[in-house]
């Protein structure tokens, strides 16, 4: 039995993704590696010994002793404002993981994949996209990414760069760029019919986002004829922060 131990994790770099989110890169000596889609528990301890922990999805592929998390700052949150605004290179947290053996994509899987992201739900799906690229996988991927507007996109440059075998559609729920053909609005059947795969291709579908989004997207996939067993979901909430 493999016991998950807490490991010291030192921040070695960070990249802002949006006005409220940043990607943190940690060096975690002894890190056992992970699969795309898995998450970790992060523990923070204050000077006086008070500590608290949160779960975050891993944003990157396995990379030796390095792990990357992308964290959205939750207004008035206890932990996320520290991670996104205060923590500096050289500061430490503890990390335990990887956790979760269900919402994962393995590079040896060659089936078509449909990724459906709502807001910060893109994070574990990005780990799948990056793992696919790193492995030179030929599994065809499509990503449907629903977000408030262009300014809220994580990994925007990387997702716009050509990546053979990966098709990306952005759906904006509130603000659309000038000349956009799709009006602002929540995800609809047509978005998944056009941006996804026909159900007959039998893709593995991974849906991640806030509860309302995941409920809606999973129901739409069922309505399009996708098999319930092929739809894996993971919920993100702004809860608790």
């Amino acid at each position, binding site marked *: *039995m*493999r*016991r*998950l131990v807490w490991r*010291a994790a030192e921040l070695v770099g960070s990249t802002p993704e949006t006005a409220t989110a940043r990607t943190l890169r940690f060096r975690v000596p002894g890190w056992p590696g992970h699969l795309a889609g898995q998450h970790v*528990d992060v*523990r*923070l*301890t*204050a*000077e006086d*010994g*008070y*500590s*608290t*922990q*949160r*779960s975050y999805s891993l944003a990157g592929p396995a990379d030796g002793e390095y792990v990357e998390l992308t964290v959205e700052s939750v207004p008035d949150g*206890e*932990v996320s404002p*520290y991670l996104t605004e*205060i*923590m*500096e290179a050289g*500061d*430490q*947290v*503890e990390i335990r993981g990887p*956790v*979760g*053996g*269900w*919402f994962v994509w393995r590079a040896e899987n060659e089936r078509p994949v449909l990724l459906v992201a709502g807001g910060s739900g893109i994070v574990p799906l990005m780990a799948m996209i990056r793992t696919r690229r790193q492995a030179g996988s030929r599994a065809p991927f499509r990503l449907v990414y629903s977000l408030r507007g262009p300014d809220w996109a994580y990994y925007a440059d990387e997702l716009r760069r050509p990546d053979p075998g990966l098709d990306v559609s952005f759906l904006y729920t509130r603000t659309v760029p000038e000349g956009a053909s799709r009006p602002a609005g929540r995800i609809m059947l047509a978005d998944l019919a056009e941006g996804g795969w026909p159900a007959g291709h039998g893709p593995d579908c991974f849906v991640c986002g806030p*509860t309302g989004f*995941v*409920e809606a997207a*999973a*129901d739409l*996939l*069922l309505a399009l004829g996708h098999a*319930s*067993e092929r*739809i*894996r*979901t993971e*919920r993100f*909430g702004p*809860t*608790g922060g």
Partner: protein
Amino acid sequence: MGGFVSIISRGFHGRRRDEGDRLPPGQYLVEDFPVLSAGPTPRVPPERWEFAIDTEAGVTHRWTWPEFLALPQETPTVDIHCVTEWSKLDTSWEGVSLDTLLENVDTAADYALVHSYGGYTTNLPLEDLLDGKAWIVHRFGGEELQPQHGGPARLLVPHLYFWKSAKWVRGIRLLDDDRPGFWETAGYHNYGDPWREQRYEGD
């Protein structure tokens, strides 16, 4: 961590709250009700709903929706603890105690495998379902239990991490031997006691 110097996160202060002794280690409080599930939400119309207990001897006890609602109802108010670290205090439910459902079930089994519409399973010792510790609930906060929270009915076993409180519950198999369920075979702890912080396999 006894004997080890813990890692301090420089500049982290946190927000201590006074929950008394109601918050298990590593948990934080939420006011809303987050949802976690592995796949699409099954929609089970009450007229097609049934709940069954299968014994190790192969005897099945079944309840239709009207039969289930006709059983004595209880209204537990309990604290719930999710393995993803949130806890919610004083949640109020309505449903039927497992003591009531198991009253006329003849069994010497030690384990229960709970199964749900949609295919989810979770396991626990049978004794954790007895003596006022578990219910099949169909109302939350005075209202019908919504599908995303497990409606029409879910198991409620508040003394274990909340993944044990299977949503969309369909039945319970009583077994002589323990048989790990969905999350229990995906790296999570087999028992899941929040007070002993049994989150993952090996904890």
